[in-house]
């Protein structure tokens, strides 16, 4: 049973992490190659707080706030850049985060933080908390999709200049996407730290950012269920197939290439096409 709990917790955390990037990249069309930095900010914040005796359920709030606040700053700095330049800027944030953490004694430096306390009710308790957080974030993203904010995000993702001509305050909506997405990553990071119970700078490297982006692209940019499904599968695949862990980058490269070349809508797009064919 302990193994199943571990698998399900890994899945829930990965879904939350991928969906948080989906708000920024999928909904609002802003490419981010540095999402793991916010995952890391949440992880370090929550770990430090729980080590000082605060329960994880409470520590997740400051974790989200810290990641969201840095997301706001990065979002502000990124407002003047688009497309490739935005991708490069956010990639810089990922490297900056790792470089910063390595030099901070308070954060364990190169060694990281170990001995992160387990949560109340142990592994089942963490699973319940992870499922609850993920479910709440799914509901939030479903609501965003249906709301006028989602409508505005659609227009910004489609064509920023046209969105402006329609009276939409593009920078403000972009900032909101950044804050919501990075706060979500912060919560996922907090849960991750208490799942693995050890974190170091390498836990939040560039590869983690790419992993989230692969989940979003292969799942179907902007699709909630598609991204959740692919995040769930990719997160636990290495547990079942050892070679997936060994050749992770190769697998991600092939998946992204195949998706962009043959199915730009990802898994969600393929499912839509299939459903339309069946209906005909």
């Amino acid at each position, binding site marked *: 049973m302990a193994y199943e709990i571990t698998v399900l917790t890994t899945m829930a955390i990965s879904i939350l992490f991928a969906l948080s990037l989906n708000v920024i990249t999928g909904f609002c069309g802003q490419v981010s190659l540095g999402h793991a930095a916010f995952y890391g900010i949440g992880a370090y914040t929550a770990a430090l707080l729980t080590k000082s005796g605060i329960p994880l359920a409470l520590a997740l709030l400051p974790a989200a706030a810290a990641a969201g606040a840095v997301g706001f700053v990065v979002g502000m700095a990124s407002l003047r850049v688009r497309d490739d330049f935005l991708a490069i800027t956010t990639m810089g944030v990922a490297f900056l985060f790792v470089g910063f953490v390595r030099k901070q004694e308070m954060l364990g430096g190169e060694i990281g933080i170990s001995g992160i306390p387990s949560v109340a009710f142990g592994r089942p308790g963490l699973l319940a908390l992870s499922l609850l957080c993920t479910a709440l974030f799914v509901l939030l993203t479903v609501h965003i999709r249906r709301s006028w904010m989602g409508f505005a995000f659609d227009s910004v993702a489609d064509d920023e200049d046209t969105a402006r001509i329609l009276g939409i305050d593009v920078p403000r909506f972009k900032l*909101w996407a950044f804050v919501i997405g990075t706060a979500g990553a912060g919560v996922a990071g907090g849960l991750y730290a208490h799942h693995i119970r050890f974190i170091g700078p390498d836990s939040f490297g560039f590869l983690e950012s790419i992993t989230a982006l692969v989940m979003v692209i292969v799942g179907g940019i902007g699709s909630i269920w598609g991204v959740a499904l692919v995040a769930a599968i990719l997160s636990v695949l290495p547990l079942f197939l050892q070679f997936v862990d060994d050749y992770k980058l190769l697998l991600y490269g092939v998946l992204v290439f195949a998706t962009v070349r043959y199915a730009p809508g990802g898994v969600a797009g393929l499912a839509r096409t299939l459903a339309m064919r069946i209906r005909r």
Partner: protein
Amino acid sequence: MSLLKVENVTMRFGGVAAVEDVSLSVDQGEMLGFIGPNGAGKTTLMRIITGVLRPQTGRVLFRGEDVTRWPVDRRIRAGLALAQQIVKPLASLSLVDNVALAAGAHRMVSPLAALLRTDRETERAKAGALLDFVGLGDALSMMPTELPLGDLKRLEVARALALEPVLLLLDEPLAGLNQGEARAMADLIATLAGKHRGIVLIEHNVREVSRICPRIYVQDNGRGLVDGRADEVLASPELRRAYLGEELA
């Protein structure tokens, strides 16, 4: 008081003056035809008025307020609307949603208010009525990629109207249309002018502009040439010189 006032505006790109010391005004309820040969700086001036470009000198006043430093979206919410020369529909949204988005622009002043609101029916109904008005009533659920250029131009006009503007800027809405389509579109534009709405129609199609616009402003090489009653402007030697050159004029 003028609805729009452009005062001594200059816009240079490197050493080239696209617009130089141009002044222009549009009153409430007025329909102004804005013509000029290629490279006259018409679209540049339009982009300055909407806020896409910021002029090096001069200022833009809208409803008495200096809006020169305002961003595009703020000018739009203040009552300006632009139907762009190169049609730019939002490709991922259906026609009705393209227009509904514009109709609900006031709902998106605050992202928080936008997050709390899900109902789109009022705006969709308004969008449906506007699409019907511009002759696209049968294509509400179609995607923009399924439409020919003439219909996309109509969509652009419907979207601009959904913003309920007091000043509507139409940048070459007849370009790329055949004679029949251009005439139909010009007739449609003529019905848009009202007591409370000013219109600026930028066009190459002098025939249609002179047919529906009582006043015409001519620009050439970035400078204002003539401004006055349509019949007087059309008879002016400056206009002939701008279009035909010194020798032929």
